[in-house]
C-alpha cells in the first residue's frame, strides 16, 4: 500500500491534496459532487474582517492554458464564515485551513484571533499575495520586512500554525520566504497568482473590470515549480505547493521540487472531481516512478547528481 499521509505542523493529512483557496468556496457546492472527507484538507475562500463585495464584473477571463481572475476577495467576513460556513465543514473528517486577508496588520490579527477564539479552524493560510485588491494583500507580499511583521503578529495572536502564502510577482521570492520563516511561519504556501491582463479588442479596454487579474492554471506551473525548488533550498519549513496542478503527475512534480502537500485551484472549474480523481491516481503514479509513499518523494528532485 502506498502511504499518502503527510504530517505538517498542526495538520495531519490523510493525503497531500487540498482544494486551493478561492476555488472551492466554503466547500458546500463541491460537497454535492463528492464526500469532502476524502480530501487531505480544505482551504477556505479568503476571510476578511468585514463582509466584502469585491470587484465589478467581468471578474474572470480565459487565457491559453489558464485564466485570469479579479474576484477581489468577496466574502461574508470572518464572523459570518464562523457562524454559517465552518459548522458545515466541521461535519466532515477534514482539517480546515482559513485563508486570512487583511487591509492592515491589525485586520490580519483580528481575523486570526476571531477564528482562534472560536476554535473554528486548524491552521491559517496568511494571504499576503492577493493581486486583486487595492490595499493589503500583495503589498505585504512583495516587501520582506512587511511580510515578516504581519507573520510575527499573527503568530503571536494564536497558537495555530501559520502558512504564509507567497506572491510570485517579486524579484526575489527567497528573500520573502526566509523573512517569514524567521518571523515564525510554520510553513509556506506558494504560489498565488501572477498579475496579468487581457485586452477586450472590441471594447478597446482591459477585459476585466478591475483591469488586471491573477493568472492561474497550467500556464503558471513552470513558474511555481521553479519558485518552490528555489525556496526549498533556503528554508526548512514545509511548503504547500500550488499553481497549475491538474493531474497526479503534476502532484509528483511538486513533491520532487520540494512541496510537502499541494493545493488545486483552477482545475476544479474544468473538472469538479479533479481533487478526488488525483487522490485516486496518486498511488499509481508514485509507484510508477518508484516511490512507496508521499513522504519519500518530497524534495527528491534536489538530490540527483
Amino acid at each position: 500500500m502506498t502511504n499518502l499521509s503527510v504530517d505538517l505542523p498542526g495538520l495531519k493529512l490523510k493525503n497531500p491534496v487540498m482544494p486551493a483557496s478561492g476555488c472551492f468556496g466554503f466547500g458546500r457546492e463541491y460537497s454535492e459532487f463528492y464526500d469532502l472527507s476524502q480530501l487531505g484538507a480544505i482551504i477556505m475562500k479568503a476571510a476578511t474582517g468585514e463582509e466584502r463585495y469585491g470587484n465589478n464584473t467581468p471578474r474572470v477571463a480565459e487565457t491559453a492554458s489558464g485564466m485570469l481572475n479579479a474576484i477581489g476577495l468577496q466574502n461574508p467576513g470572518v464572523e459570518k464564515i464562523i457562524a454559517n460556513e465552518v459548522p458545515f465543514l466541521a461535519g466532515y473528517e477534514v482539517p480546515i485551513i482559513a485563508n486570512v486577508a487583511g487591509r492592515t496588520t491589525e485586520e490580519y490579527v483580528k481575523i486570526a484571533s476571531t477564528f482562534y477564539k472560536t476554535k473554528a479552524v486548524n491552521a491559517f493560510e496568511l494571504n499576503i499575495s492577493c493581486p486583486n485588491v487595492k490595499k493589503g494583500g500583495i503589498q505585504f507580499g512583495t516587501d520582506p520586512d512587511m511580510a515578516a511583521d504581519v507573520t510575527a503578529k499573527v503568530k503571536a495572536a494564536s497558537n495555530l500554525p501559520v502558512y504564509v502564502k507567497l506572491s510570485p510577482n517579486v524579484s526575489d521570492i527567497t528573500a520573502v520566504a526566509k523573512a517569514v520563516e524567521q518571523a515564525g511561519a510554520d510553513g509556506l504556501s506558494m504560489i498565488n497568482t501572477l498579475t496579468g491582463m487581457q485586452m477586450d479588442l472590441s471594447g478597446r479596454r482591459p477585459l476585466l473590470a478591475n483591469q488586471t487579474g491573477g493568472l492561474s492554471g497550467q500556464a503558471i506551473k513552470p513558474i511555481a515549480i521553479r519558485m518552490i525548488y528555489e525556496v526549498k533550498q533556503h528554508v526548512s519549513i514545509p511548503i504547500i505547493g500550488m499553481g497549475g496542478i491538474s493531474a497526479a503527475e503534476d502532484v509528483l512534480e511538486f513533491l520532487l521540487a520540494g512541496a510537502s502537500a499541494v493545493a488545486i485551484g483552477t482545475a476544479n472549474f474544468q473538472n469538479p472531481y479533479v481533487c478526488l480523481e488525483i487522490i485516486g491516481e496518486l498511488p499509481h503514479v508514485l509507484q510508477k516512478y518508484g516511490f512507496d509513499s508521499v513522504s519519500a518523494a518530497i524534495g527528491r528532485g534536489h538530490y540527483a547528481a
Partner: protein
Amino acid sequence: MMKRVEMTVASVREIGRDTFEMILQNAYIACNAKPGQFLHLLVDSRTLRRPISIASINQENDAVTILFKITGNGTKWLSACQPGVTLDAIGPAGNGFSYDEATMETALLIGGGIGIPPLYGLGKELSKKGIHIKTILGFQSKEYVFYEGMFQEFGKTYVVTNDGSYGNQGFVTSVLDQVGNFDRYFSCGPIPMLKAVTNKLSDHQGSISLEARMGCGVGACFACVIPTDSEGGYRKICSDGPVFAADEVML
C-alpha cells in the same frame, strides 16, 4: 441535482448565420432539466467551461436541444462537433424559470439574439399548460433570424431587427406598445436590452435570465455575481440564477 455527465451529439445544424442548433443525448439531463437551466460544457479541453442554455427538453428521446452562436473559439469548436461525439457537461445547472400558473393567463416572451434559446423551452412548457403566449424576438439583421416559426406555434410572434432587414426595424422595446395585455413577462438577452425592457415594464411582474463570465459555474468562485438593491447584497448568476425576478438584481 447537478451532475457531470457525458452527452452524445445527435445532430448539429446551422439555423441562422453563425447560429447552430445541437441535439444532445443524456437521460439524466433530459429527465431533470427545467427551462431556464443551463449546461456547463467542456470545449476542446479549455480551462473554463462554456455555459449554454437548455433550449428545449425532449424526455421521450432522452435529449435536450441547445442553440448557440459562434462568438469565439469555444463555440466555434462546438459547432464543428460531429454526431456521435460525446461532450462533457455539468448540468442541469442553475435555476429555471418559476412562476405562478394560477395568476397567469397570458405570458410575454421577449428574447434578444442568443438570449432567445431558454425562452423556447419555457414557451413549450407554458403552452402545454394552456397559458396564452405572445413573443417578441430581436435580432441584428435578417441573416441571424432563427426559430420564428417555432415561436409562432405558441402564438403571435413579433420579429424586430436592428437594421430593419426583416420584420420591424428597431429594438424589442419598439414593439412593446403593440403587444397588448399580458400578466407576466420573461426576458433574456444582452444587458442593455434587459435594462430597457425592465424599465419600460416596471409596472409588470417579470423574470429575466442573465449572462455572466463564469469560473466554476456551481457557485463556488464568486466570478458571476450581480448586485442586489440592498447594501453589499448580491446574487450568483450561476447558482442563484440565471433566472431572477426583474426587480431582484441591479442591472
